[in-house]
């Protein structure tokens, strides 16, 4: 039976590094069995936040409780699995040696070979870390995180730099962990990943949570489920575009105007007749559903990956 008790709460988290305010008052709460995502551009403070929660970074202010204890408490470390943003496991050890090493730290972990099989590393069981591909390394990092049989998993950008197939495997592993009742806190740059894995999200920027909610809820908060991108020559003015039926917002993206519309069937014919009446030639028009990316652009004025 899934319980809804708080696994992790943190309030008013603050951390500065020599004048850089990396985290400026972050509140989070995770309930058992959910996957919680932190989204944000480079330097938003995701890694700093997660490493405070892992007990690796001292906090300057705020309060954190994990399973009722302070972060870094050995009772917490026993129940938490971690994959840092960047860890190089010893090149000269084999896969099974690494997993066995990590297994030895936990009082009640999982069986080494079972974890290796679960992460589809059995073929590479005796291969040296130096010889693994990026995706295999990431799965090994997850194996080291899972072998302690954790109740809570911290994953800092678990799929950055992986190809789509390797990413898919990582997603499966995370979803399987969740299906087994585990709780996950992950950070990511990928909207698709956040949408696929996370029950709830917090969007971070400049060390602050600027929006939070479920992926669907965040998209709905745009007030318009659809996006129309149009390029005309000459360009149409934003005032006229914004006055079109059901359009709630107009923005620019390179040559294109981007219209957020609640109802495409009303907005699109009106857009085309506006162009015709102005004598503007429509070079491109496309429609799609709004995504988290649009939420992000709307909130921060910048794309996730180029912020």
């Amino acid at each position: 039976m899934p319980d809804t008790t708080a696994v992790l709460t943190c309030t008013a988290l603050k951390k500065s590094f020599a004048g850089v305010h990396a985290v400026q008052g972050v509140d989070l709460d995770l309930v058992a069995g959910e996957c919680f995502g932190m989204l944000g551009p480079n330097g938003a403070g995701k890694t700093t936040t997660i490493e405070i929660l892992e007990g690796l970074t001292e906090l300057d202010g705020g309060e954190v409780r994990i399973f009722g204890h302070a972060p870094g408490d050995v009772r917490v470390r026993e129940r938490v699995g971690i994959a840092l943003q960047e860890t190089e496991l010893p090149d000269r050890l084999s896969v099974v040696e690494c997993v066995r090493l990590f297994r030895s730290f936990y009082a009640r972990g999982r069986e080494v070979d079972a974890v290796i099989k679960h992460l589809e590393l059995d073929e590479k069981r005796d291969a040296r870390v130096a010889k693994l591909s990026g995706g295999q390394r990431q799965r090994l990092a997850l194996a080291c995180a899972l072998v302690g049989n954790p109740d809570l998993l911290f994953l800092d950008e678990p799929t950055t730099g992986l190809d789509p197939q390797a990413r898919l495997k990582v997603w499966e592993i995370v979803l399987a962990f969740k299906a087994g009742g585990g709780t996950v806190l992950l950070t990511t740059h990928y909207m698709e990943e956040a949408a696929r894995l996370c029950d709830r999200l917090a969007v971070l920027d400049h060390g602050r949570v600027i929006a939070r909610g479920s992926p669907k809820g965040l998209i709905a908060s745009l007030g318009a489920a659809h996006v129309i991108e149009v390029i005309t020559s000459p360009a149409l003015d934003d005032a006229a575009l914004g006055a079109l039926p059901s359009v709630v917002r107009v923005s620019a993206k390179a040559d294109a105007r981007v219209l957020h519309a609640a109802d495409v069937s009303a907005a699109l014919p009106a857009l085309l007749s506006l162009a015709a009446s102005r004598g503007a030639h429509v070079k491109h028009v496309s429609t799609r559903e709004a995504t988290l990316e649009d939420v992000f652009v709307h909130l921060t004025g910048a794309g996730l990956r180029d912020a």
Partner: protein
Amino acid sequence: MPDSSPSSSLVELTRMRVLMFVRDPGAVFWVFGFPLVLAFVLGLAFRNRPPDPMHVVVADDPALAAQLKADVTLAVDEAPLDDARWKLRRAQADVLVYRSGGTVTYRYDETRPEGRVARLAVERALERANGRADTLSSADEKVSEPGSRYIDFLVPGLIGMNLMGSSLWGIAYSLVDARKKKLLKRLAATPMKRSDFLLSILLSRLVFLGFELVALVAIGWLAFGVAVQGSLAAVAVLSLLGGLGFAGIAMLIGARTASTETAGGLMNLVMMPMYLLSGAFFSSKHFPDVLQPFIKALPLTALNDSLRAVINEGASLGSQRVPIAIMAAWGLVPFVIALRTFRWQ
């Protein structure tokens, strides 16, 4: 499925360190191969030869030469006078002998001990050949003290040098490398006992120290006949203490440093003076007296001197209290500071 019988993390951490080392061919060569090569090369270069004969050149006098050739301690050469003088000048001969009228003349360089000795030996040989009898009865007793050859001096120095190099590289470098690669940080996030991690460093050093010591002592003994005059247990105890001393220094270097370049520089800064001053290749007694207290306080000096006392002179462990105290201090003080200041990231 939970697995409730894991191996101990101390064992696993030690195993990790041992495996990482033995799988690094470069490190294995520098720790094991290089000192052995060095022992061989230096041992061959400085091995003891039979005593050199004294070189005599006889000018234009075959009869005189024949008398001298009867003495096996003399190497006799014959030449015309001009050539013979030239040989003497070039130190190809220690003494030139010629006869004019009834007088035998010895020509030699008084400032060269070889010259003076050769003159006496030649004179004695000629006098005996011409009938002089010894008036005292005498006997020769030739000695070669065990442990007095250069290779006897060298082998303990190589052991000391090797323990220093392998401890520093094996500990300091690997710590800094693990910190740089965020492995220390990752370990710190597990419930791993920090004391297990630090203990595993010492344990894995102990394993290697055993191998290094056995290899060097065995090579010294089998290849060069360097016998351990004192007890093997004393050698082991001193090496262990020396190893701990270097481990303390290595932990201190590795406690906070985050770049392997900085660590390399610090290690050289520590090791260079000791290579030069601590008497690995030649006795540190050649350095000026003002430096001696400083030199004696270095851990490598303490290790080298005490190993030499035990290996070459058969000294007991009890007689080595001062070097033992010095090594123990080097093991303890930096280690405690390192523990206090250690950084996991």
